[in-house]
């Protein structure tokens, strides 16, 4: 089987087979094929190969293919959106946030209110006085104001709180303010002892310090032991 030297016509033979030529080109190719033995043989060969390939086509299960296809996007969009649960979650979150803000704000407000009328040094010292006080916090300890309060109290006017005068010993002096009721009644050694105690404190609170409890000799806090 020979090849026709007209490569352009040979190129068109499959298109002639599949009827993909326009009228003029089809007429030209047909005219050539009628006159060319080689092109006629090649066209016959193409028909045979085409028939063979078509006969070999396996049968495809259309339903098997279609059932696996995705749904159209428009059909998917048509389904109702289920946003209600999401809105509920958002609402719950907002409630939790609101409760948190209220709790923090309320706590801050309470702390501020507490700081408006802080106890004075005099009142605190009075509480530490063992004389005439049945409500002494503990037999083993007395409450000493923290440095900031003491500093404030040092300039405060003295009150009428009773003091265990003359009952101070060296232990008392070591205890500093622990055995005295008023700063104005302290002598220099006692004040120095108090300052030494202040210097030994680990840290100074920034705001609203808590009372510091110091352990002292039980006898030194009792007027009977003097």
């Amino acid at each position: 089987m020979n090849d026709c030297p007209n490569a352009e016509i040979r190129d068109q033979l499959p298109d002639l087979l599949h009827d993909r030529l326009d009228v003029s080109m089809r007429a030209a190719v047909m005219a050539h094929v009628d006159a060319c033995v080689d092109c006629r043989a090649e066209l016959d060969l193409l028909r045979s190969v085409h028939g063979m390939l078509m006969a070999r086509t396996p049968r495809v299960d259309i339903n098997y293919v279609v059932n696996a296809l995705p749904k159209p996007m428009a059909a998917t969009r048509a389904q109702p959106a289920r946003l209600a649960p999401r809105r509920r979650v958002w609402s719950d979150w907002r409630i939790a946030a609101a409760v948190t803000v209220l709790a923090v704000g309320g706590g801050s407000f309470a702390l501020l209110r507490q700081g408006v009328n802080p106890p004075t040094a005099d009142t605190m010292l009075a509480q530490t006085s063992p004389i005439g006080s049945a409500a002494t916090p503990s037999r083993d300890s007395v409450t000493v104001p923290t440095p900031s309060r003491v500093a404030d109290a040092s300039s405060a006017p003295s009150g009428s709180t009773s003091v265990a005068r003359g009952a101070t010993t060296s232990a008392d002096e070591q205890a500093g303010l622990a055995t005295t009721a008023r700063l104005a009644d302290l002598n220099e050694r006692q004040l120095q002892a108090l300052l030494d105690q202040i210097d030994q404190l680990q840290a100074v609170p920034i705001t609203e310090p808590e009372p510091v409890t110091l352990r002292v000799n039980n006898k030194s806090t009792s007027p009977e032991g003097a």
Partner: protein
Amino acid sequence: MSNPVRGDDQRDLDLIARWKAGDERAATELVERHSAALARFAVSSGERSDVDELVQDTFVRAFNSLDGFRGESSFRTWLFTIERRLLLDRRRSEKRRRDRTEIQESDSATEYDALDSVVADETQRRLEDAVGRLSPTQREVFALRVAEGLSYKEIAEAVGTTEGAARVHYHNAMRAVKEFLDE
């Protein structure tokens, strides 16, 4: 060269539009129009088993990416491109598993002999042998040109080559078939 297939292409575009609008029957018609060609191309490319599955995978992938189909080529050519990629992926994975023997040019006739249970005619059997001896690329191009009637441009898109290379592959394949039949 005129292009009467344009009418088919327009029909495909209409069906795609209908499917996008929610008409699932349009998908059925698209599958009916192109599944045989895809199956034929799979067999021509040397695929022997699970052709249904391959065709199904091709359509699934195509429908999942229909937004990317611009209609610059025909829908069928686009399907061939997808199917060929799937074929290559499948062959790579099968090669890794060593479960598949690639159809080599030396034994391709034997492969086609094993496949053939339909063709009894001696001439047709020799045709199968002749096509089976082509290289894989020649066989793909030859099948798309002869069986599907694609242009060289469409073949080039489908098999990932140039139009000129597709033409050369076709003519080399035709010469090889003639030579085999003349022996």
